[in-house]
């Protein structure tokens, strides 16, 4: 077909550019909103998805990755003995009060793992080495948190509670947007941070399934926490975990050829006080928690909806005015005997051109913007192939939907107008 649609579109270049700007605005808004949502949800489960563990054993109360009850460290060795388990490793998560070199405080999430282990590894270390966190009171943080933790570079020292915290390495893209800054260190250091300047008691909880679960609880000796001066505590050498020391998860790798679901069932049977999740379950629970908790899906969805509405209005208005300007030509087409469908096709084709020519630069723009925000803000605008395809579908729907106004106009044109001068 001689593309009367395309030619009509390009006949008035300024109008075409306004239309494209409108579409780009709408598409970019939708892309950025869904990209932030994707980036957000992905960031909340980064630690889970980058672990190679098949199964995560946790307390039954687990709400999300960072919100769970402690379980005793002896679960690791117990799990190791279960048939079908290739490896079991501990993952500890503690909260800490960060005191930056200049004295500013912040909350941090201390993630303790075995740097010699296999199931939890930092996957994007940009400076230093994971082995370095074996040194006492040494840790790795994400580049994105460097400033907020009051650091300038590797080698500097701050405090967590009463204990020192020396920066030995950096990672990139490991931080959950929803959480306090992660600091990664060894299990021993995690225990040391939890216990520095504190006294220990063993606390036991009766479980619903019967039986008692005991973990060590560290509490301040003094009634007034203010007296624990940050820089002058008695700091001891970090010690390995005892059987009762609290950890958050036992990461489990199934033996090759082992059915993961079967192993999950076995672990649940053998440890009725705990619950074992698959990696996907862990990720889903955590993702859902943050989406529900923050209402981010709704907020960003609202933004995306506004984008679509603006897009529909602009495209609709442009198509309508283009059709109005050419109404006599459409009347002529009708008079000459073109069917309604042919005329709709012209308008829809025009809408499709607008969609394609608006979508491509918008996605390009958003990819560029995403790279920039990630590099400078540590905020990921994640455009997956699926969301890119979905946004293309939305763009096409938006443009074709907007064509309805123009189609209305053409449907009502009387071909007899062609003889009116």
């Amino acid at each position: 077909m001689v593309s009367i649609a395309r030619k009509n579109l390009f006949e008035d270049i300024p109008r075409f550019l306004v239309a494209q700007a409108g579409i780009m605005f709408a598409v970019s808004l939708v892309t950025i909103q869904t990209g932030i949502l994707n980036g957000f949800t992905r960031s909340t489960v980064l630690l889970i998805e980058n672990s190679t563990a098949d199964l995560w054993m946790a307390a039954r109360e687990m709400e999300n990755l960072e919100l769970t009850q402690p379980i005793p460290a002896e679960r690791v060795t117990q799990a190791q003995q279960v048939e079908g388990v290739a490896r079991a490793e501990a993952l500890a998560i503690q909260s800490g009060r960060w005191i930056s070199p200049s004295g500013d405080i912040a909350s941090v999430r201390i993630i303790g793992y075995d740097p010699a282990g296999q199931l939890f590894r930092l996957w994007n270390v940009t400076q230093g080495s994971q082995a370095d966190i074996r040194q006492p009171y040494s840790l790795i943080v994400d580049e994105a948190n460097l400033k907020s933790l009051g650091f300038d570079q590797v080698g500097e020292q701050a405090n967590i509670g009463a204990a020192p915290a020396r920066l030995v390495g950096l990672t990139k893209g490991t931080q959950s947007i929803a959480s306090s800054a992660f600091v990664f260190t060894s299990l021993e250091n995690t225990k040391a941070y939890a216990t520095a300047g504190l006294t220990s008691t063993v606390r036991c909880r009766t479980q619903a399934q019967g039986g008692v679960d005991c973990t060590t609880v560290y509490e301040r000796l003094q009634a007034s926490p203010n007296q624990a001066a940050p820089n002058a505590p008695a700091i001891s050498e970090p010690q390995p975990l005892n059987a009762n020391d609290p950890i958050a998860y036992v990461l489990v790798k199934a033996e090759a050829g082992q059915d993961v679901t079967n192993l999950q069932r076995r672990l649940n049977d053998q440890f009725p006080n705990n619950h074992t999740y698959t990696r996907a379950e862990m990720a889903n629970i955590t993702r859902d928690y943050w989406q529900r908790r923050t209402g981010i899906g709704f907020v960003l969805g609202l933004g995306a909806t506004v984008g679509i509405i603006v897009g529909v209005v602009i495209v609709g208005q442009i198509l309508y005015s283009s059709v109005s300007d050419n109404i006599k030509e459409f009347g002529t087409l009708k008079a000459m005997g073109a069917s309604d469908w042919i005329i709709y096709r012209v308008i829809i084709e025009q809408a499709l051109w607008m969609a394609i020519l608006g979508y491509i630069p918008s996605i390009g723009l958003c990819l560029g913007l995403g790279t920039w925000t990630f590099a400078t803000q540590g905020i990921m605008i994640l455009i997956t192939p699926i969301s890119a395809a979905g946004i293309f579908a939305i763009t096409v729907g938006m443009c074709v939907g907007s064509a309805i106004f123009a189609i209305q106009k053409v449907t009502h044109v009387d071909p007899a107008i062609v003889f009116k001068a």
Partner: protein
Amino acid sequence: MTASQIKVNMLAKAAHHPTSASSGAFESSDLKSPKTKAIVTKGVEMVFQSGSQRFHALSSVDLDIYSGDVQLLMGPSGSGKTTLLSILGGILTPTKGSVQILDREITDLSRSELSRFRLHNIGFIFQEFNLFSALTAAENVELVLKLKGFKQRAARKEARELLEQVGLGQKINNKPHDLSGGQKQRVAIARALAGSPQLIMADEPTAALDSQSGHEVIALLRQLAKEGGRTVLMVTHDPRIIDVADRVAYLEDGKLKR
């Protein structure tokens, strides 16, 4: 239908209706050799209703138009010429009466049937040319051919030939914007002839042209119509066009004057 088939059909028709001398300019069918009728109307009435106002634009119009003729429709402004042309072109449906075009009673056709009927049987020429401003001369003609089912390649070739026939072989890639009024109307003639419809309907095709190019355009239209054996119905104000007509009908206040 392919282009070549249409051509062959038209040539056969032309052979059956040798061009009649343009001597009998006025309605005098009795003097002519028997010809088939392209259009027959009986008791056509057109009433426009706007609000409570009723306006009789046409009353009991009985008009026969013969195949191969150049038929003029004349009359003062507001007499109903355009209305009648629209009805005979299948664009407007009369409020009363019968309209047979090429032996089809078009008042019985549905909107979409009527649309298809127009597409394949009638070419239109307008006072204001009504070309597609975003398309070149060739594309304007191609578009109609494509609507009629021509393939891209055949349409392009045919469009070029038609534009050469109207003397615009050098201007096929010009947009309407770059053409004079007379040239635009030639493109419109090429477009109306595209796909060889049997009927050509033109509403005051020279009204927007100076008299020189108006004359050229009409002469060209007549020549091409006669060559193809087509029937032309033309509304005009221009008394000089009477010379090129086979018959002339006069309208006054919506009635045919005998």
